[in-house]
């Protein structure tokens, strides 16, 4: 099955009001080109589930988000994501704030077809106070109460990987695949952008096959977008764009998201990349040191 699609056609599968999972972590390997395609669309009222970075900030600022499911939103070296803060401090979005691990359990429950997964995580904290929909359950095996972390069922997941073939075999060569495998499994439709489209033979090397973290049946669409994670990183191909993130963060006080999008977004990804200095400049971005 040939799953290749253009970014526009892939994102056209998303409908108003859907629940969208976004892979990556903070400023790392975010499917930003797909997020930009949402920014160019008239989509609205989305519920977004993410280990958030500028993906969440931009979608909130552009009025695409009705509800956010999050544990944090951060750009790491800029700890507080400016547009996420603005959205929260203006009361613009509904939230379901959970622990990082609870989000993982919610994705696993959705992937496994379970209504919930029991955990101690969240007990005694305001995660429970502010999310009355998260229930406590009794254990049939002990006398303790446990948090029943509900399944986080996703209509669509958006992911970015290093390489993929036309059938949706996806390689993440970087140091961490984060929770992308669970986002892929928790969603009905998983749209994957890749820096490079490769022949299926690429994966015959067992070392590369070990860098594939979900089966192709969990990939619905493949979109080839070199540099598509920019301004987030796609280690080892490129680091995150410190200067661009600084300009993005500064825009919250000077021009707002409208000014930022006017300057950079463009009508398509080719225009975006011209506006940020070109693909060669993206691929030359230094890898971060932690």
């Amino acid at each position, binding site marked *: 099955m040939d799953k290749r699609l253009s970014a526009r056609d892939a994102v056209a599968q998303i409908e108003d009001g859907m629940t969208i999972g976004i892979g990556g972590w903070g400023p790392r390997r975010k499917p930003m080109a797909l997020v930009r395609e949402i920014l160019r669309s008239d989509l609205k009222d989305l519920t977004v589930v993410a280990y958030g970075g500028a993906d969440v900030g931009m979608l909130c600022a552009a009025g695409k988000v009705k509800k956010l499911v999050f544990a944090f939103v951060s750009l790491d070296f800029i700890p507080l994501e400016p547009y996420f803060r603005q959205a929260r401090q203006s009361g613009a979005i509904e939230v379901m704030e959970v622990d990082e691990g609870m989000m993982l359990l919610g994705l696993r429950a959705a992937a496994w077809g379970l209504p919930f997964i029991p955990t101690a995580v969240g*007990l*005694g904290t305001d995660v429970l106070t502010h999310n009355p929909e998260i229930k406590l359950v009794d254990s049939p095996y002990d006398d*303790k109460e446990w948090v029943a972390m509900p399944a986080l069922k996703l209509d669509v997941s958006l992911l970015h990987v290093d390489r993929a073939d036309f059938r949706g075999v996806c390689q993440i060569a970087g140091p961490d695949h984060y929770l992308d495998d669970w986002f892929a499994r928790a969603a009905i439709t998983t749209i994957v952008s890749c820096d490079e489209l490769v022949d299926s033979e690429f994966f015959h090397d067992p070392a590369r096959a070990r860098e594939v973290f979900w089966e192709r049946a969990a990939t619905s669409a493949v979109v080839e977008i070199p540099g598509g994670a920019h301004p987030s990183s796609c280690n080892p191909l490129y680091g995150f764009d410190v200067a661009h993130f600084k300009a993005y963060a500064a825009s919250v006080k000077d021009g707002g998201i409208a000014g930022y999008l006017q300057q950079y977004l463009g009508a398509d990804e080719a225009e975006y990349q011209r506006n940020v200095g070109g693909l060669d400049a993206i691929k030359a971005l230094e890898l971060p040191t932690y």
Partner: protein
Amino acid sequence: MSTAATDYTLAELCIVAAAEAFRHDGEVLATGIGVIPRLAASLAMKTFNPDLMMTDSESFLLSEPNPIGKRPADFHQANETWMGFSRIFDNVWSGKRHAMLGPTQIDRYGQTNTSALGGTYRQPKVMMLGARGFPGNSISHANSFFVPGHNSRVFIDGECDYVSSIGYNPARLPRGRSLDDVDIRRVVTDLCVLDFGGPDHQLRLLSLHPGITAEQVQENTGFALSIPATVPTTPAPTQDQLAIIAALDPHNQRAAQIADNPPGNRG
């Protein structure tokens, strides 16, 4: 024994005091978030607790802590195994971890806030990071805290605006659990070292940094502390410890962690 230093910064004193939190941990993952906690965990691993495990703050476990900041092009870190985020949760929930972090608020119960200040939950006055992994950390394994500016806005009167982590609060105790299940270890600040070993888990003064008085600490804390009749002075770093810290922090990032980088002895 190496000789005690006479010339050291407050940041270095805090690193040494915070390293003590990991001394008796045995073989657990030591996670120090931020420059001083990370250097503290690294110092502990390099000296008195070599059994500690540590990550590269990205995705590998190391058998030798990385120096912080940019490293030479020919630097090879001592990888031990892959330790991506999903595997971090496997470790957290197994309990074999001790994290040291810097929350924005800490209340009398040892509950912390990393998420939001003021306003309402729907519309907070100041939005911060979010709950992050604090709920899971606090119910799963040992935790310590580092506070670079000890004042009553951090150590607040009343409960945290948002409770990110479980503490010794009877009103929030989950059914079937005991307050003793909560494992908060050391609190290291720019003024002193504390723990929750006072009566009924009251925050207790363990040692005062040189030149600081118990009155100063109490004045800068929004609730009553347990203060023993005699409070020792936080031990100065040794020359050996200072040399190891300098090697772990070649760009001297520690100098930028506490306002004005004061000397360790403020007497």
